[in-house]
């Protein structure tokens, strides 16, 4: 019998490689495992993946290739919002279930018939952070963000929801993805009267911000985004990372999760599998791919078919799926199915992640 084809286009290289790389590894590993266990619906699973290097145009071409030439049954992929949005019209036109691994709100708002996503949105990250500042009675927050798509999108969401949490934004600075020194921006922030600083960014920029933050003598609470939710951030920022808070999925703290946490088994097992196989630390991003793949497989199992329409319907009907990102409850209006509880507020303590408070 013909194999079930799962298509993926991911940013395995390029500026978003730290997203695409663990995503691809995860997909490859779990497709292998599924096949080792006999596949699903009595068929083998085949992964067809392409590297879009973070370029939306390439992503679109590859999405077309997946749909038209490789005739995949479902697409799991789109590491960034830009690449995802490029493929959305194709998935919609061709009627292919498409589970995105990117963060921004517009992917699922307004809901699109064939498009789903697994990661938390950047708006949720902002809300989680502002909820935290609110509880610490910090009302003046300075924003600093990178100039990439993730960074700008999150910055925009934070600006939108700030007032909801009584937050006044007193500074709004930017840095480039490859900048080597942000002390100029931080010095301006220092003079802005902020009580806390929020950095929306991913890659190495946030680590430099963190180090420069200490260099210019800032001692205010510093919040980073879920975009740096990996050990690498702590490694790069070094001692300066102490006390930094950020919202992230449970995956990062699987070892210190209380035993009764529903996510504990899932995240522990994923972590173990990943780290044993690749000898490198897990990040939340690989987890998104794990969730995407499992949602797709689950939907096919529920539908007892790879018929695209049926799989889509099954996806939309997902309830109570426990993944690395949280507990997913989809509906016709909610193609992500996560709420704020999926995020944990982490703090760096003694060079390790810990649960805040």
């Amino acid at each position, binding site marked *: 019998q013909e194999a079930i084809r799962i298509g993926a286009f991911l940013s395995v290289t390029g500026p978003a490689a730290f997203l695409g790389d663990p995503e691809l590894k995860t997909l490859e590993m779990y497709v292998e495992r599924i096949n080792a266990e006999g596949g699903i619906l009595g068929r083998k699973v085949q992964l067809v993946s392409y590297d879009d290097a973070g370029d939306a145009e390439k992503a679109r071409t590859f999405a077309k290739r997946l749909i038209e*030439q490789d005739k995949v049954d479902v697409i799991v992929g789109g590491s960034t919002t830009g690449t995802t949005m*490029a493929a959305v019209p194709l998935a919609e036109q061709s009627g292919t279930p498409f589970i995105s691994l990117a963060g921004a709100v517009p992917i699922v708002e307004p809901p699109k018939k064939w498009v789903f996503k697994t990661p938390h949105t950047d708006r949720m990250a902002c809300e989680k952070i502002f909820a935290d500042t609110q509880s610490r009675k910090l009302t003046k927050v300075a924003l600093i963000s990178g100039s990439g798509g993730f960074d700008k999108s999150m910055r925009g969401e934070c600006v939108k929801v700030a007032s909801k949490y009584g937050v006044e934004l007193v500074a709004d600075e930017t840095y480039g993805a490859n900048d080597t020194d942000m002390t100029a921006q931080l010095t301006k922030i220092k003079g802005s009267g902020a009580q806390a600083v929020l950095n929306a960014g991913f890659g190495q920029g946030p680590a430099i911000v963190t180090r420069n933050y200490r260099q210019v003598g800032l001692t205010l609470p510093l919040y980073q985004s879920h975009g740096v939710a990996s050990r690498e951030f702590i490694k790069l920022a070094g001692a300066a990372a102490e006390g930094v808070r950020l919202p992230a999925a449970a995956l990062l703290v699987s070892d210190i999760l209380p035993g009764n946490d529903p996510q504990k088994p899932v995240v522990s097992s994923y972590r173990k599998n990943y780290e044993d196989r690749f000898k490198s630390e897990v990040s939340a991003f690989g987890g998104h791919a794990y969730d995407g793949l499992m949602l797709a497989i689950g939907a096919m199992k529920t539908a007892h078919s790879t018929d695209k329409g049926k799989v889509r319907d099954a996806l939309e009907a997902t309830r109570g799926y426990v993944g690395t990102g949280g507990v997913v409850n989809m509906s016709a209006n909610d193609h992500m199915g996560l709420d704020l509880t999926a995020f944990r507020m982490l703090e760096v303590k003694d060079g390790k992640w810990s649960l805040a408070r």
Partner: protein
Amino acid sequence: MLAAFVALAPLALPNNYAYEIAIQIALNAVVCIGLNLLIGYAGQISLGHAGFFALGGYASAILATRYGVPVWLSLPGACAAVGALAYLLGRPTLRLKGHPLAMATLGLGVIISIAITTEDQWTGGPDGMQVPPLVLFGLALQGERAWYWITGALLVATVWLALNLIDSPNGRALRALHGSEVAARTLGIDCTRVKLQVFTLSAVLAALAGALTAHYAGFITPAKASFLHSVELVIMVVFGGMASVFGAVVGAAVMTLLPQLLTVLKDYEMMVFGAVLVATMVLFPQGLVPTLARWWRWRMQ
């Protein structure tokens, strides 16, 4: 010959994905022909043409979405606007030569790219913006096949125009100022004007291709304006062969296809691509088409 090729190629195109690649090749080739006039014939390097390419797309998209201009109007409007901009920017820039010119055009490209990324209320920022489809004579142009014929026809027309230009007094003036600017001036060639003309022409072609790419894809991102895209365009030109119109077409075709073929190599892709590029340029220092053409002529004699 090219026209026949374009007309017959669909017989060998199995699916929409193949059409997609063909369309990309045609659009890239259009940019490269313009760029080759500038780099290969006139000897004026530009490392900023991606800026014009992207501006074409963004301008047309913004005119259409924000101002409700019908696309059949916004597209030429965008090209004209980019042409005017290139003309203005070209005035001071083209006084430079060689490496300073490369630097200046690179700078223009980077500035355009930063502006596009930053002005997100207009452009949607780094994640790009949606672009409405091309509507001609009240018909929305959709589907790969329709686009294939449009872009194929455009490519044939561009090749024809470029060949005409090269074999005309204006084209000789271009090559003359490449050979020796002083000598060209003493023959009455107004080098400033000629350079400006070809710079503007190439920018308009880039904008046209950029706008069509955007309308075809339905979206555009600032990556299209990036320095790396500018370099990619120049690589296409040099790879295919400088001062060769067909070289530009071949360069665009190979450089569009190659990444699609190499994608099976996964982690080795970038390495192999680099190696292929180096090997080709070492073996064919004049570019693919001129070196092969010479070789062919040699064989024939």
